[in-house]
């Protein structure tokens, strides 16, 4: 509340004044009023970072609630999730919210990443913001991968099997990574324990740490402006109230969407995993990994005498490295000039991913 509002009578006014005196809310609001968000044709893309952040909040809240009933053992994991969705009041909602918002969060994070990429917002001096962002995306996907196994249903079990198999394809360190992930040579109860540990302890700690740095960097440097945008003082949108209230409205909309999805398409539980059963005919990882798994299906067994899958994994790793290093490679953007080459590469990557994900759902074989 501004200093003017603090002068309002009544309990609210008194409370506002009391807090302002101790916390300096007025200063903060005044600061936020002066902080501006660039107002351009691309402004809509700036919201996806906020949406990702909101969805992360939903994840934390629902995740904490799920911990009250979830039991991370092969004997009880499936049954405890079943208990949550069937016996606990609103358990179905909490569980569905957690699953759905996880998926929307991955989606929003991808959109956020690509919008930053196409606007070349990674260019100096925001390289660190970009790097922490990529780290957050990787962590988000790891969150998804580890969380997918936790209900211990057969789809997740076999998807994890396939996923860790793909990890094992990485040259040299692959087998070690796969063993480390699985806690053994096979996906088993040990894997469940590990994934639980990753999902509820290590990843949240790491994510929070990187997120704080990411947000501080944005705060420190302000939001990037598109290349070639004319510098017009006063043309920006004030962070408060303009951006924050719009964010709030959007977040509410996202929450409404989430609730609708959860009610009309509650996340399935499937059948309990049976490690000794043969894999179901139709297994596929979570959609955000399908661009990987689907493209591996088209890779020939041998490329120049080397294992085809290993070559493909290397190509993906080079792709990943390219994204990480984009701010350092894109010299034109660093000079503030348009860099159509990087835009083209980005479009190619997006097209490739969209095609593969679509194929995984339309024509898996």
């Amino acid at each position, binding site marked *: 509340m501004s200093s003017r509002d603090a002068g309002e009578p009544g309990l609210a006014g008194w409370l506002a004044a009391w807090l302002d005196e101790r916390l300096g809310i007025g200063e903060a609001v005044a600061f936020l009023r002066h902080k501006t968000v660039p107002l351009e044709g691309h402004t809509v893309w700036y919201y996806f970072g906020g949406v990702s952040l909101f969805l992360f909040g939903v994840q934390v809240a629902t995740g904490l609630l799920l911990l009250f009933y979830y039991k991370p053992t092969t004997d009880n994991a499936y049954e405890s999730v079943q208990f949550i969705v069937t016996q606990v009041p609103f358990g179905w909602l909490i569980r569905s919210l957690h699953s759905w918002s996880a998926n929307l969060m991955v989606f929003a994070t991808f959109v956020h990443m690509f919008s930053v990429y196409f606007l070349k917002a990674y260019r100096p001096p925001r390289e660190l913001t970009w790097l922490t962002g990529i780290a957050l995306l990787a962590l988000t996907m790891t969150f998804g991968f580890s969380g997918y196994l936790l209900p211990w249903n057969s789809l997740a079990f076999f998807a994890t099997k396939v996923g860790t198999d793909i990890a094992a394809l990485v040259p040299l360190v692959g087998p070690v990574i796969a063993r480390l992930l699985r806690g053994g040579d096979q996906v088993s109860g040990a894997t469940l324990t590990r994934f639980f540990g990753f999902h509820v302890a290590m990843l949240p700690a790491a994510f929070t740490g990187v997120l704080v740095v990411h947000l501080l960097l944005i705060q420190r440097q302000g939001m990037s402006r598109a290349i070639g945008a004319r510098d017009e003082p006063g043309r920006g949108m004030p962070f408060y109230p303009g951006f924050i209230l719009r964010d709030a409205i959007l977040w509410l909309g996202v*929450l409404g969407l989430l*609730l609708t999805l959860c009610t009309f398409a509650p996340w399935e539980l499937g059948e309990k995993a049976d490690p000794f059963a043969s894999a179901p005919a139709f297994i596929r990882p979570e959609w955000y990994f399908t661009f990987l798994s689907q493209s591996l299906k088209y890779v020939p067994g041998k490329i120049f005498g080397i294992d085809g899958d290993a070559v493909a994994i290397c190509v993906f790793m080079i792709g990943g490295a390219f994204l990480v290093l984009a701010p350092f490679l894109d010299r034109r953007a660093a000079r503030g000039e348009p860099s159509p080459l990087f835009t083209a590469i980005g479009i190619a990557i997006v097209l490739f991913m969209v095609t593969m994900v679509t194929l995984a759902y339309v024509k898996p074989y």
Partner: protein
Amino acid sequence: MTSPVDAELGGTARARRTYAALLCGVTLLLGSATARAMSALDAPTAGTAPSMAPVAAPTAAAAREDSCVTCHGTLADRLGAPVAAMAQDVHAEKGLSCSDCHGGDPTVMDLTAMAPERGFRGVPERAHIPEFCGRCHADETYMRRFDPKLPTDQLQQYWTSVHGQRLRRGDHKVATCVSCHAAHGILRPDRAQSPVFAANVPGTCGRCHANPEYMAEYKIPTDQVEKYTHSVHGEMLLVRRDVSAPACNGCHGNHGAFPPGATSVAEVCGRCHVNNAAFFGKSAHKPAFVRLGLPECATCHSNHEIRRTSDEMLGGEEGAVCRRCHEPGSVGHTAAVRMRDAIEHLKRVMSDTETMLTKASAMGMEVSDEQYALREEIRPQLIKVRTETHLGDPGRVAAEVDDAIKAATASQETAQRTLAEAWARRRNLVFPIALIVILMLLLYAKLRQLERRTDSDPRRR
């Protein structure tokens, strides 16, 4: 058999073996009568009348050098083949050697080893094969030392079989022991490569019984194996490799193979299909079938081509087995229609319930209790009712069906309640969504208001 012997051969023994082989070869070239005698399966050898005297203890022969193996091991074709085949033979496994069946003296290193005075029996005539094997296999005292649980009545049973009876009458085309078990290289029946391993039995019987040329003179069908292959039992055994499913011998017996005949079909089928046979035994069909000479179960289910049963077999429509005897309008026809209708009614209630439960479950509702009841309590009742149709009593079927429907209806009501609750959740979504929309609108109004104020704020300009 060759390998253990080989392993024990010293240098001198090997030299001796070479000599013996040479000797055998020379003798054969000369066309010795003895050698020719043992060369052909069908050619009888002098003095091979089956002797029922049990052979000596088997183990001694195996350890020492065996002139049968030494000589025949070097021979080609028919004369040498048994040596190789015996390597995996169950008899060899138990320490038995050639002489334990064929007689003679394996310690003698020349052709006199096969002299009749040394107890040489040579190759049995086809008609004498059963006794040849039975010399040991029908001797309980002798067999006990290998496996006390092994039956010793195969020979006795064989003589009661159609094969045995015809053999006695001089028909040499019928199966003897070696037709199914092979002569050398006999495997235990539980070994998957054995011709009498459950899944191999239809093929083994079919070698003769599915050969129209071979069977021509017997004037019996040769399509049993073909039909069996398409039957529910054949599919279980041959495709799904469930060795508990009956092969030919499951119904016909093995050593005492005989067609079960009209009077004992129900007994045979009833050994596994207990309830069906019991109900049929109490039904009005039983005496009628006996009077008409109909082969009980096989009348409706066929014999070799027993298809997986279906509810379509019951009832008054074309294609239902009941229609073969019961004309529309007859008492039997009405009864069949009543039973079928009752079953169809139960099936409808069950499938409705299942659809509802699946839907509720897809909507995130807990219905595992009802699903369990449907699967583990009501479905067995349906199976029971299907079995009870063999009693041919529509009143009893209707009563059983009513019980099952009562249980299914209870499940259905729960499913309905659960579905209603699931729909309520969807309806109730209106409230949070309305709240969210209102809040969004209010925030938007506030935003407009604040922005208007900020725009006109002189401090910002």
